[in-house]
């Protein structure tokens, strides 16, 4: 390391009384509270922060804040590591561990730097022209090599231990950017009574006030900013957010602010504060006071460590008391950079100015000269020289320059260990453009400025292309007042500031060779895109700026072109003979700066990722070892294995209990919808394929629902509670969907029907008591009603009590056994469930889960919508023609059933399957083929929809949708399985057990 560069005095942001030490690439670096990694490392004398993306060139600090594209570091260890952070934004604390990136084995000695030696062979887009031979090499050789070389930092190891959260907030005026313009706009809006949010990406308000010079109402600008900031913090109707970047602007003034709450303070983090907070702001008005970003100048080797923006050099001195070097050159085409020269001179740093403009006059250049700073007007830096490995610059070449000059004839050398460059300033338009704001090119600024916007967005200050202090204040105070909805314009304070003359654009400074003959004038530093690459893209026909961007990757690095954009357009314009507006601009996309995925997920991780729905009996299932099956958001018990049992064994046990004794199922998840009104019956006739107006009160009927395409979408049992009153059951997944579906038809199509629909699914716990002993169990529960077969036959309903429990009892069955579905209000659900379990003990009652349920119903040939159907299946396909009314003129889906393809003769039809070997269980989804061949392709004729080993029958059973299946009863078909085995199965009836239904009606 070379000598330290901390100045003996100065540094507005640092506290010299508080020493802080951290590590960079393992070495200890010390700095002061208030330093960033960038300022502290620079103070230590180190220049190189990382390596570039493609050529692995050593790179140093360029920027002042979030525009930084070179000095990227990884911060934190293990699961807390975070790559690609801008060293200019990382605030230091004791124990912070930072590492450089994209180098191996070390920052100063990097093997990848060979790419720089070979860079002549890697022009923009080179990879499209090679790596094609031999074919397999792309996947196995070239691509892995490229992928390892690319990327920047490393991903963290392990799961993120920190918390994140989001918050929604509404405001009248959102001011983005807490610089001079933002402060003024916020103050004016607040004074007019608006609810104001002021957000800034930095730790403190003020923006560039501390490096801009000037006075407001007799106060030095930084002091005015501090005082105004303090007033806003204190105001009752203002919320100030620091370290909060407005990352994007979306439709209807929706803005997201990404707040880094605790990154800068490990003590905060360990106290449990969320690391990041995402603010979702809905603003009546948005004021963009996002300021401007200085642009580099393209000169040969302008990427060498030590070459930085003039504002960055000034910021190092003013904010951190750090000298950018001992002896440097300010290279500029504008007046603003003279302030940097003046500040450097004040601090005792050697400096001279190279100004590409023919004349350097006006207040600031004159002041510089007066201070004894040499000024070379009409000159450029034509080259920089570096020490070994390009790790730092040692000198510059200065040459005279006239506008449009192609190459340099004579140049003189000067010693320098840094260059502070300024190519002018670009309004930060990103947020303006995110949601389609138009922009226009300003010839005087040689930059784009805001134009029209269809949302309520207003840009003020430098973001709107206004750089003079009095102009900024005037505009911002007026806008703040107006947008707060008041006619009272806040008084505008008086401003004093040195006047500046306009810049003259210089898109690349000439060198001795032509810029496209081996010189490297970097435009996009991080992605290593040079002026020559942009010119090549033009020449090869990638003329649209979007083509150029994509072909060369210009503007696609992690800074998203913040500093490179206009320079690149300038080069393209010159190369193609167009103007910059003709070249156009690439679209700015959110986010303004990258923000964490963790903050986007917020608290919705782990258990909260997606809601889990629980029935009233959930905890009982847990306590009894249930294995879960997610059904929609519900968790249902799949089976209840006992000690030592496999799932298979427990499922078989549960099935046999239902067949031979009695079982108990938690069916609470089934949808339950009350439907009432004079037109309820007619309405149901429209909704269902079958007739419901003929159903008698107290009776149940199984119904099928189709969508308008004619495909099955739901099924269930509906009971008629009264003349105009029904209770509909839906599938577990269907409750909300069907309830909304019924409402939709009532509200939008049959608006004259007088029907009310209320979804009462959640009010009821519902349990199936199924099996030959079900009535005995029910009897033991002290029913208040007659449960004999005569009084409560299959498909009937009764309301009453079981002991103290109010219940609705439906005698319906999905297992083919004697079965009662007992519903009780959900807060009594657990109690009743336990009573049933206790009452059933002597009858051998076993709770059973969804898998047993599925086997039981498959043995009976009952379909499950979603298993036997897949969204392209009609009721006729599954053999339920009988439930499709011929009498009703219209019901949902009826007309579609009449379409050619839906009534085609060769459709797949639901059949039963019995494998030749009863021990062969066909895999779910297995396909049958017309002819078995040695190898694919084979023509498929249908697939298995459900397949189980039936413990009841002691053999496998399956259902399948088979082409023209019902006509092929008795035929044997073949299922070629993976590995060559072919299972043969005979087409049979879908009902495998108790075909007569004798067990139902007992």
């Amino acid at each position, binding site marked *: 390391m070379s000598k330290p560069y901390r100045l003996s005095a100065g540094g507005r942001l640092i506290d010299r009384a508080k020493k802080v030490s951290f590590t960079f690439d393992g070495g200890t670096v010390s700095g002061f509270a208030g330093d960033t990694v960038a300022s502290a490392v620079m103070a230590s004398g180190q220049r190189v922060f990382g390596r570039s993306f493609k050529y692995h060139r050593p790179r140093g600090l360029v920027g002042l804040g979030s525009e930084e594209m070179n000095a990227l570091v990884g911060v934190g260890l293990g699961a807390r590591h975070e790559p690609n952070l801008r060293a200019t934004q990382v605030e230091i604390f004791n124990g912070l561990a930072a590492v450089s990136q994209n180098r191996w084995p070390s920052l100063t000695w990097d093997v990848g730097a060979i790419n720089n030696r070979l860079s002549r062979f890697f022009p923009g887009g080179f990879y499209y022209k090679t790596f094609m031979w031999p074919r397999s090499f792309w996947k196995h050789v070239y691509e892995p090599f490229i992928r390892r070389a690319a990327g920047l930092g490393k991903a963290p190891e392990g799961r993120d231990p920190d918390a994140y959260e989001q918050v929604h907030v509404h405001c009248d005026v959102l001011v983005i950017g807490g610089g001079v313009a933002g402060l003024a706009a916020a103050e004016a809006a607040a004074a007019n009574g608006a609810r104001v949010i002021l957000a800034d990406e930095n730790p403190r308000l003020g923006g560039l006030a501390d490096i801009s010079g000037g006075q407001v109402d007799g106060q030095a600008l930084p002091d005015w900013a501090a005082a105004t900031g303090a007033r806003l913090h204190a105001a009752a109707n203002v919320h100030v957010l620091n370290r909060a970047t407005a990352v994007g602007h*979306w*439709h*209807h003034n*929706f803005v997201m602010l990404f707040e880094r709450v605790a990154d800068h303070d490990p003590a905060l983090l360990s106290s449990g504060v969320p690391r990041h907070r995402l603010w979702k702001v*809905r603003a009546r008005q948005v004021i963009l006071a996002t300021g401007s970003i200085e642009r580099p100048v393209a000169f040969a080797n302008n990427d060498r460590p030590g070459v930085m923006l003039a504002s960055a050099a000034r910021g190092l001195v003013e904010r951190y008391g750090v000298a950018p070097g001992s002896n440097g050159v300010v290279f500029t085409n504008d007046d603003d950079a003279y302030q940097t020269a003046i500040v450097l001179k004040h601090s005792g740093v050697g400096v001279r100015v190279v100004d590409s403009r023919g004349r350097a006059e006006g207040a600031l250049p004159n002041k510089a000269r007066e201070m004894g700073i040499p000024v070379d007007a009409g000159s450029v830096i034509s080259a920089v020289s570096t020490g070994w490995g390009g790790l730092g610059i040692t000198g510059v070449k200065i040459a005279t320059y006239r506008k449009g000059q192609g190459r340099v004839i004579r140049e003189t050398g000067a010693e320098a260990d840094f260059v502070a460059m300024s190519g002018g300033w670009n309004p930060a338009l990103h947020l303006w453009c995110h949601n*389609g704001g138009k922009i226009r090119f300003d010839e005087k600024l040689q930059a784009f400025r805001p134009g029209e916007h*269809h949302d309520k967005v207003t840009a003020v200050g430098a973001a709107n292309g206004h750089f003079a202090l009095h102009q900024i204040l005037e505009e911002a105070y007026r806008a703040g007042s107006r947008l707060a909805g008041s006619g009272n314009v806040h008084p505008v304070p008086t401003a004093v500031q040195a006047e500046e003359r306009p810049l003259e654009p210089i898109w690349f400074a000439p060198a001795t060779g032509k810029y496209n003959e081996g010189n490297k004038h970097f435009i996009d530093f991080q992605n290593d895109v040079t002026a020559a690459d942009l010119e090549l893209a033009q020449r090869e026909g990638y003329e649209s700026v979007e083509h150029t961007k994509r072909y060369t990757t210009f503007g696609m690095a992690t800074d998203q072109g913040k500093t490179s954009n206009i320079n690149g357009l300038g080069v393209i314009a010159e190369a193609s003979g167009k103007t910059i507006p003709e070249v156009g601009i690439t679209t700015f996309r959110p986010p303004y700066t990258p923000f964490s995925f963790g903050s986007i997920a917020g608290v919705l991780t782990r258990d909260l990722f997606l809601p889990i729905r629980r029935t009233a009996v959930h905890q009982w299932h847990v306590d009894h070892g249930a294995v879960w099956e997610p059904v929609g958001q519900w968790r249902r018990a799949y089976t209840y294995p006992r000690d030592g049992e496999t799932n298979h064994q427990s499922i078989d046990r549960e099935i046999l209990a239902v067949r031979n004794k009695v079982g108990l199922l938690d069916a609470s998840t089934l949808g339950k919808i009350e439907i009432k009104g004079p037109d309820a019956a007619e309405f149901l006739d429209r909704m269902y394929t079958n007739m419901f107006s003929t159903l008698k009160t107290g009776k149940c009927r199984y119904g099928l629902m189709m969508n*308008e*395409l004619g495909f099955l979408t739901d099924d269930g049992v509906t009971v008629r509670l009264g003349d105009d009153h029904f209770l509909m059951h839906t599938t577990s997944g269907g409750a909300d969907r069907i309830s*909304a579906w019924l*409402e*939709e038809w009532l*509200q*939008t*199509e*049959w*608006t004259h029907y007088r029907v009310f629909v209320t979804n009462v699914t959640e009010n009821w716990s519902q349990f199936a008591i199924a099996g030959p002993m079900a009535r005995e169990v029910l009897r033991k529960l002290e029913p208040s009603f007659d449960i004999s077969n005569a009084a409560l036959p299959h498909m009937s309903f009764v309301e009453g009590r079981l002991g103290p429990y109010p219940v609705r009892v439906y005698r319906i069955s999905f297992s083919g056994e004697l079965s009662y579905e007992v519903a009780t209000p959900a807060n009594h659900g657990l109690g009743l469930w336990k009573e049933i379990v206790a009452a059933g003990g002597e009858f051998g009652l076993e709770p059973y889960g969804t898998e047993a349920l599925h086997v039981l119903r498959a043995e009976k040939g009952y379909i499950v919508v979603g298993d036997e159907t897949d969204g392209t299946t009609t009721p006729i396909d599954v053999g339920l023609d009988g439930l499709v009314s011929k009498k009703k*003129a*219209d019901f949902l889906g*009826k*007309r*579609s059933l009449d*379409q*050619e393809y839906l009534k085609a003769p060769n459709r797949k039809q639901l059949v039963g399957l019995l494998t030749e070997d009863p021990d062969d269980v066909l895999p779910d989804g297995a396909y049958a083929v017309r002819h078995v061949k040695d190898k694919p392709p084979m023509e498929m004729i249908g697939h298995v929809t459900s397949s189980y080993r039936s413990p009841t029958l002691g053999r496998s059973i399956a259902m399948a949708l088979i082409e023209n299946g019902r006509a092929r009863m008795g035929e044997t078909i073949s299922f070629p399985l993976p590995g060559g085995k072919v299972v043969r199965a005979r087409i049979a009836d879908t009902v495998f057990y108790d075909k007569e239904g004798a067990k139902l009606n007992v």
Partner: protein
Amino acid sequence: MLVVKCPVCGAEGDETDFHAGGQAHVRRPATCDPAHVTDAEQRDYLFIRINPRGLHFERWRCDRGCGKWFHAARDTVTMEFKAFYGITELPPMDVIAQAKGQWAEYFAKRLGAERSRETGA
């Protein structure tokens, strides 16, 4: 993220509080004359959509509010809502006047039919 306003209950909120329900004013032919719906009519009902770049008319539901369906007129480029109106209503006349192409044809026909029904009656 859009801000939607329900014309039934006046609730205003993020699009996530609402449910977007596709194109407005699609006629279900089977409701009127189930016996005489052609395949082409059924296709138009189920699949053919007016899909303008610009002013569009669509259905929304106040999903986390009053639960009612309603209509909206929205520009599909700027996303600006021009009107919210009832589920059985036509858009305000000044918005109809801004409709272009297939929508303009639709409203002209619809208004014409209503006018002739009125004069006929």
